[in-house]
């Protein structure tokens, strides 16, 4: 029979939030994608995309939608389309480690760990914002 081990309360808080948000993220990604594959409300028409998905991202978007993609606008401005709705699940998965880190900060065993996790969280947020601007 397994003996009792001591697990960092910081680890348990991190694990709890990660479990919840991963499940929600996968559901939010897959459910609209099923409708997308069935041909419902496509922002990127699959019948056209198939001719260009071998191109670089820049050429792909130019040829399929006639636009240059820069930042997250293409997702948030087109949420009526199923493929863009599916990207919300991907975004939630991307943010899940950040949300889990916030939970861990609250249970950090010392100020050093709280500061390290705060730095990682700040970098996380900054890099996501920068990617939308650059």
């Amino acid at each position, binding site marked *: 029979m397994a003996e009792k081990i001591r697990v960092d309360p910081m680890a348990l808080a991190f694990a709890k939030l990660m479990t919840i948000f991963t499940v929600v993220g996968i559901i939010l990604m897959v459910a609209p994608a099923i409708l997308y594959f069935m041909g419902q409300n496509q922002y990127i028409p699959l019948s056209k995309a198939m001719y260009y998905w071998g191109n670089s991202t820049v050429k792909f978007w130019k040829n399929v939608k006639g636009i240059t993609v820069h930042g997250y606008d293409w997702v948030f401005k087109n949420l009526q389309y199923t493929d863009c709705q599916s990207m919300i699940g991907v975004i939630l998965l991307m943010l899940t*480690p950040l949300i889990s880190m916030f939970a861990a900060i609250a249970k950090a065993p010392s100020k050093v760990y709280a500061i390290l996790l705060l730095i990682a969280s700040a970098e996380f947020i900054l890099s996501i914002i920068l990617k939308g601007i650059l």
Partner: protein
Amino acid sequence: MTAWWFWPLFLFIFTLVIGIISPVSGVGGGVLYVPLATVLTPFNVDFIRGAGLVMAVTSALSSVPYLLRKGLANIRLYAVIAPIMVITSVIGGIVGLWVSNALPNGKYYVKLLLGIIILLVFFIMITSKRLEFPEVRDEDVDSWSRKLGIVGEWYEPSLDRIVQYKIKNLPIGMALFAIIGFIAGMFGLGAGWANVPLLNIVMGAPIKVATATSMLIITANAPAIGIYLAKGAILPVVVVPSILGITIGARIGAKVAEIIRPAFVRWLVIGVLFLAGVLNIIKGLEGLGYLPHII
């Protein structure tokens, strides 16, 4: 021309197979997915790398909570390494997309570099030892690890007791993690192939702790997804079938691992990895005009 639905269906079956052989062989799914899908499917390498990164992060997110509760993944190590890897994986992602979009023939440079990295992974896999319970004496523990109290314990069923462990060489490990983060972000490869030997051999973590903590560290690569998303390099037609395939396949693979010979499968997969590395190098050199078209 093949109907559009053929390729998502192909990706689903392809990742299902990768998902099955991954737990059996001990070779991470992401490291097989990117080089093989680049060669076998018509999708541009940018879309494959974007999907590879989402796949690596999602696989890690699914397994990490269990590993943390069992004491196998060390969150204190993660807290030290994450601030380094978040930044370097993002820089790697920017450089990767810049190379393939801004340079003439950029996608061929990426394929060539990817092939070289894959061969490097191949050599690490065939040469690195796996230390079940590395001995870390008190005097081996570096001052940073000591001050931060980076220790841990888990219940080991094969020994029927709780195993406690310590860590060494934290400053060297942090520098090496910076390099790994860059490569992982650039190629969307996941980083288990490098994290595990580094944690196990350089830093003295027991192999089970190294494997579990590696999964936890891979979650720090998540912001690099933003780069691919912001450049339009994440498409549901590539990402969704790949994630479904690898998730279902990994569950089947965990069962299969109990009944077949892992050593044989491990060598088979390492052979496929070698082949994928060579194919990517050949395709890169062909595209750049250094080789005539042979494949």
